[in-house]
């Protein structure tokens, strides 16, 4: 039975998340945009609250730990944790993307752990805040070009290399580090390792100063003979042809989450712009053809349509994950559409609102800065288009580079 509405059972969760966004995020949004690198201590209590929500609910919470895949009952339509997580993130990022990214225990590292950890590892590392360290100065989108190495020495791996752009890297308890077991074996040898933040071999180099999401810290590290136990390797330790695919699997689950972030900030900008336009005497009519309305209303409709497209693609990707349908294609479609829509719409809203949009009295200009990263991290727009094209055209990464 085709139905593309938010499921009734998730409405309380979305309402709760919206309240958090309204009451906690929005009031401190500008404060931490200005005070870059200072820790939003308001979030500690909130994080505990969200942990509690996750514990006490069978539908998953609003956090990154909710993306573990479960088997759906045969043929039965399932609305599960992927969908609820996406809905929660949309609401929270309607509040503030940077603060969502700074939420303790909701990092991308937590998603990676949730997606591929063994039961043992879940026991050891569960309940901790985990950041993700993939990018290097010479390897961004091309994660197969990673230079960081991991060498087995007895019961320990020894990690060496340099990692940049680690979201919440300084604040987290754990860092999931991507490194190669054997650089001559290419991508098959790339594995991820859980490193405790207080490991003496992990040295913080600096925190970045950024265009947006300034509430969220972005750390650069050097790994110098950083020793971790053998059990810290996530997934299969064997170097196999298809091994890298397993590492990349995490992203099928996390791309819709980043899409959801973009959807949230886009909605925030549209809602504020609708209010501002109304003050200026322009209302949007859905029955009258767009071209018969004020140009600003027509522009708004166009932006709202793109927003809705991004929202629907995001829900589709999450719904497919909940129902154990392969969704790599749809996850990339959602990420690509939501990423570019976030940038186009938030910038368009600043343009429509003029100096009100551009000035710091409102949050519109901030959202227009925050949104840009969402079309970059977790796979840039161009990488998503590559993934989509390879799947549609049935091409290998050697054929379509």
């Amino acid at each position: 039975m085709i139905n593309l509405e938010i499921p009734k059972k998730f409405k309380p969760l979305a309402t709760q998340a919206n309240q958090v966004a309204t009451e906690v995020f929005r009031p401190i949004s500008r404060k931490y945009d200005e005070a870059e690198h200072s820790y939003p201590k308001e979030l500690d209590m909130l994080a505990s609250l969200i942990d509690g929500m996750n514990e006490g609910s069978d539908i998953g919470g609003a956090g990154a730990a909710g993306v573990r895949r479960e088997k759906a009952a045969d043929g039965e339509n399932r609305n599960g944790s992927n969908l609820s997580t996406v809905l929660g993130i949309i609401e929270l990022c309607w509040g503030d993307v940077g603060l969502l990214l700074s939420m303790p225990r909701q990092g991308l590292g937590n998603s990676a752990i949730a997606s591929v950890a063994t039961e043992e590892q879940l026991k050891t590392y569960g309940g901790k805040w985990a950041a993700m360290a993939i990018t290097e100065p010479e390897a961004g989108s091309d994660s197969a070009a990673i230079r960081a190495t991991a060498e087995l020495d007895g019961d320990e791996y020894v990690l060496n290399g340099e990692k940049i752009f680690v979201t919440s890297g300084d604040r987290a308890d754990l860092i999931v580090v991507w490194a190669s077991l054997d650089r001559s074996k290419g991508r098959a040898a790339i594995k991820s390792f859980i490193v405790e933040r207080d490991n003496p071999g992990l040295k913080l180099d600096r925190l970045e100063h950024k265009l947006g999401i300034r509430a969220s810290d972005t750390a650069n590290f050097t790994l110098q003979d950083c020793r971790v136990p053998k059990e810290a390797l996530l997934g299969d330790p064997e170097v196999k042809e298809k091994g890298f695919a397993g590492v990349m699997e995490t992203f099928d689950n996390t791309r819709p989450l980043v899409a959801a972030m973009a959807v949230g900030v886009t909605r925030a900008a549209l809602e504020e712009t609708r209010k501002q336009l109304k003050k200026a005497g322009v209302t949007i009519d859905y029955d009258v053809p767009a071209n018969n309305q004020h140009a600003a209303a027509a522009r708004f409709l166009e932006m709202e349509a793109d927003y809705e497209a991004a929202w629907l693609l995001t829900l589709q990707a999450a719904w497919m994950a909940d129902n154990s349908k392969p969704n790599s294609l749809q996850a990339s479609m959602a990420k690509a559409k939501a990423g570019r829509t976030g940038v186009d719409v938030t910038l368009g809203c600043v343009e429509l609102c003029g100096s009100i949009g551009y000035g710091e009295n409102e949050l519109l200009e901030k959202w227009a800065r925050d949104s840009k990263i969402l079309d970059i991290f977790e796979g840039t727009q161009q990488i998503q288009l590559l993934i989509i094209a390879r799947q549609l055209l049935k091409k290998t990464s050697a054929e379509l580079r």
Partner: protein
Amino acid sequence: MTTTTENKGMAERGMGYGLRALNRLAGSDLLDRIRIRKQVEQALFQGTKNGFKGATAAGRTFKAAQKLGKPARQKKGKSTGLFDLSPDDEQQMFQEAGRSFAEDQIRKAALEADEKRETPKEILDQANELGVNILGVPEELGGVMTEQSAVTSVLIGEALAHGDMGIAYAAMAPGAVATAIGLWGSAEQEATYLPAFTGEDIPAAALAILEPRPLFDPFQLETKAKRKGDEWVLSGAKSLLARAKDCELFVIAADAEGVGPALFVVESGAKGLSIEDEPAMGLRPAATGRLLIDKVKLPGSALLGEGNAKAKDYAACVNRSRIAWCALASGTAQAVLDYVIPYVNDRQAFGEPISNRQGVAFAVSDIGIESNAMRLATYRAASRADRGESFSREAAIARKLCTTKGMKIGSDGVQLLGGHGFVKEHPVERWYRDLRAAGVMEGALLI
């Protein structure tokens, strides 16, 4: 109808479905329970008998069979309250039948139909047998659907337009009139007109809203209905009606004195109606024509529907039409994607397939993304309509996407084939012309 060996399976299935629909009506307990079997049988008989008699441009005589006490309506759709993208079993059956029909017959007939500006009768007949024009007819009156059928109509429209948008328009246009009467008609109007649609010779019919002028707004109509005693007098012009010359029945939108925009049921025999040929950029198999309305006198009962809900009904009609055009645009956009993929994979340049280049590959990705989103937005609007929820916003959004992204897809389809896309050897130039219609058309189709 000519049935070649390769498409026999489909033909049988299409036929089977039509027969099954009739059979289901005959076997329906509901008819006996509410004691209208006689009337419906009579209505069917009447419709059939009359149908064969006057299938000319002059039109048959529509005569009320014994009417029901109050108008029959399809029930609102139910929902489990869960997000779900899977059609139900019945919808899947319709969808699959529509897809095979489109692949086996419509696509093959499309080039010639486009040139001749005519859809072969066999295809129209087979679409009728598939039931595409009675989806909006309430079950008590011979329809096949117990519940509201907006999503089912969307799925069928999408499937047929994957074959060809112009043929899909020609095939489904009569259903717009049947659906309008089934949704808003009085008991009398239902009894008078719907039997003709459940019979074998379904009349060509048109839901006429669009008017020939730039910046047309369906809520500011230049077609006027003036009161004259108990009668209405209609004047104006309507654009791009499918098979206009063959139409026996019209539902015409006019600005009614003291009412506002409203719909009128008008038979083709009415004095003062005339048809002008109106060929267009695309939708050519639908043989589009213009309806000229010159002081046409209508009885008071010609106003569609009862009660005071006309403004709301009219807005719903406009929006349901827009969703229907989105369905066709989604199907055509998917056709573009399905066509360009093998082409860019086969086409060689600089020693390798052109799809090995990002400039080409990314264009394909974008067609994939936007056509997927067009479809989802259309489904959302239609499913809200079925459940009786507001859908004006969702229809506007689907229309915006299907207009803008649909046209971009049409354009990119030609672009990806280069010069080959510009010539009629490939269907992409036709889809380019057809996809422009999604943002132009108002009315004409209805879910």
